[in-house]
């Protein structure tokens, strides 16, 4: 059955799409978009198949070219990776639908390279998720990063500089990761994750492993924009084209967070990283600081996109906090927040794209009632996502916070509980600032009394936006099923 090959088919279909779409696009430009969409939908299809398959038959080990690990490269899809890869391709597919019209407006004539790079980006991310090999992960990491730099660089005037900075820090992160697995390889003689998981507990001398773990955490932390390694993020998100940041923000950092989870809890084990050595505590505390710092910086921003960038830092902090708590509830909170934040940020960045499409700017001071009258559905989508960011039930954002609160209480760490609560209120400030502007008629507008007609963005942009915002509510209400049937299976063994 071809379905058994789904782990490789997901990245391959995207890679193939990228390879085909570029030459075909040079020949006939109009064909690029359908090809890219086809590739992305095939990847989405196989991701969905993968999740069903894994839930029915358990973890799927796929040996590339039938080489048995640790000699060959192994792809492992368990419920966690199937879940994350579905998020990646789900977001990717709908953003790709969205990107067509937005690109026509923002960078006419550059659709071919953009779609190709976007496919490469998704391929890299999907590969990072499904692979079970540490070096293979590095390769996919670099594929996704290089395409991410490209996605950023085609944006506004300052974008290349932001992209260059991103490239510098990203390369440092990747190099640290490479160095880290080098050390690990020296000690264990294997690059296979599961193999390493078996060998590491047997080592009598842990020094080398500790160095390697530290290097990997710093490296992945940079990619994930974990506080205080987030410096590349605000500029990159702000100056990227709106579609570029819509690709980047929801999934790029989340996949790195997933890698962090994998390395900490699957390659190493929860006891090792939280009990014997306090890696997770450091991550949790840094994330807690990041949550507050990101929220406070977000309040200070005047540009909608930049505000979202800082809010991303704070939201990544939630994921980091869940990872750092290193208990089952924290794990659930972190992984659920990967999903929730992906949806919320996708909505918010697509809203950003819509506003930019109609108004050519996303500066918050110019937001007013006219914007709502012109873009009523976009505004509604924004409101839902904003409520979810604040954490109002029954939107999705509430529930990941709920699990994180439970996890913090369970750990008896009240400071984290306070941080989560406080950050909700800070989110309230910076989102209601905008909601007020959008919904309240200004006195000056009444006097001018001009009739603003509804003028929504094209349907191919509107539908993805609304789709994500509806998912924010629906997946919020049905989160328990995700948690019970998918995430609980994925809780790493040895986590108490």
């Amino acid at each position, binding site marked *: 059955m071809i379905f058994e090959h789904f782990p490789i088919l997901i990245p391959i279909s995207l890679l193939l799409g990228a390879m085909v779409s570029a030459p075909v696009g040079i020949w006939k430009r109009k064909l690029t978009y359908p090809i890219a969409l086809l590739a992305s939908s095939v990847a989405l299809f196989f991701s969905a198949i993968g999740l069903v398959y894994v839930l029915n038959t358990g973890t799927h080990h796929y040996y590339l070219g039938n080489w048995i690990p640790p000699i060959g490269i192994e792809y492992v899809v368990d419920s966690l990776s199937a879940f994350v890869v579905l998020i990646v391709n789900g977001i990717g597919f709908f953003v790709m639908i969205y990107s067509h019209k937005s690109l026509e407006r923002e960078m006419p004539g550059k659709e071919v390279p953009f779609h190709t790079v976007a496919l490469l980006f998704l391929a890299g991310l999907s590969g990072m998720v499904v692979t079970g090999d540490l070096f293979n992960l590095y390769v996919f990491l670099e594929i996704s990063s290089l395409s991410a730099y490209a996605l950023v660089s085609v944006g506004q005037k300052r974008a290349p500089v932001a992209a*260059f900075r991103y490239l*510098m820090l990203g390369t440092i992160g990747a190099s640290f990761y490479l160095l880290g697995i080098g050390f690990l390889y020296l000690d264990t003689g294997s690059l296979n994750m599961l193999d390493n998981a078996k060998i590491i507990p047997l080592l009598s001398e842990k020094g080398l492993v500790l160095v390697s773990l530290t290097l990997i955490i710093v490296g992945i932390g940079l990619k994930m924009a974990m506080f205080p390694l987030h410096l590349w993020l605000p500029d990159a998100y702000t100056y990227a084209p709106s579609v570029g940041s819509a690709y980047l923000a929801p999934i790029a950092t989340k996949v790195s967070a997933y890698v962090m989870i994998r390395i900490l809890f699957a390659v190493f084990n929860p006891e090792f990283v939280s009990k014997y050595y306090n890696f997770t505590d450091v991550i949790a505390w840094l994330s807690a600081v990041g949550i507050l710092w990101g929220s406070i910086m977000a309040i200070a921003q005047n540009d909608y996109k930049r505000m979202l960038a800082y809010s991303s830092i704070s939201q990544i902090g939630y994921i980091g906090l869940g990872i750092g708590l290193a208990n089952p509830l924290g794990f659930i909170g972190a992984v659920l927040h990967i999903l929730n934040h992906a949806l919320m940020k996708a909505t918010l960045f697509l809203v950003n794209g819509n506003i930019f499409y109609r108004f050519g700017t996303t500066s918050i001071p110019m937001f007013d009632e006219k914007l709502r009258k012109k873009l009523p559905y976009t505004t509604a989508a924004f409101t839902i996502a904003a409520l979810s960011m604040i954490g109002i039930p029954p939107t999705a954002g509430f529930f990941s916070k709920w699990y994180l609160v439970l996890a913090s209480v369970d750990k008896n760490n009240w400071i984290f509980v306070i941080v989560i609560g406080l950050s909700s209120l800070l989110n309230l400030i910076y989102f209601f600032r905008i909601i007020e502007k959008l919904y309240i008629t200004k006195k000056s507008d009444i006097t001018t009394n001009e009739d603003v007609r509804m003028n929504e963005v094209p349907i191919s942009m509107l539908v993805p936006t609304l789709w994500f915002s509806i998912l924010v509510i629906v997946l919020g209400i049905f989160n328990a099923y995700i948690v019970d049937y998918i995430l609980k299976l994925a809780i790493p063994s040895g986590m108490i």
Partner: protein
Amino acid sequence: MTDYFIGHVAYYFIILLLIIGLWGMLFKRNLLKKLIGMNILQSSIILFYVVSASKYNATVPVLNPKLKVIEPSQYINPLPHTLMLTAIVVSVATTGVALALLIVIYKRFNTLDENELLEKMK
């Protein structure tokens, strides 16, 4: 102690390279110099892998009577070296992307100096 030092001299060199590379990336004003720093950093890591798998009086793990291998420890683990082929490709690609970015930046701002860039971007 001396033996230890001499035995690991390659690693000290690599650490030195790594620090030079990082320092260049973080503190050099010129973006091109940053890029060179990045290349030094990547080279140091490549060297690290290569050194870690190098061995005197040893040869490739091929079962060939001409090589006169008596015991398995005379084989070299080829994996780190092959991995580095990939890493070199990645590093070249990264350099390529970075250079492309630098060209765009220079065209737009007419400078590669970080301070001047910040000045011009205001």
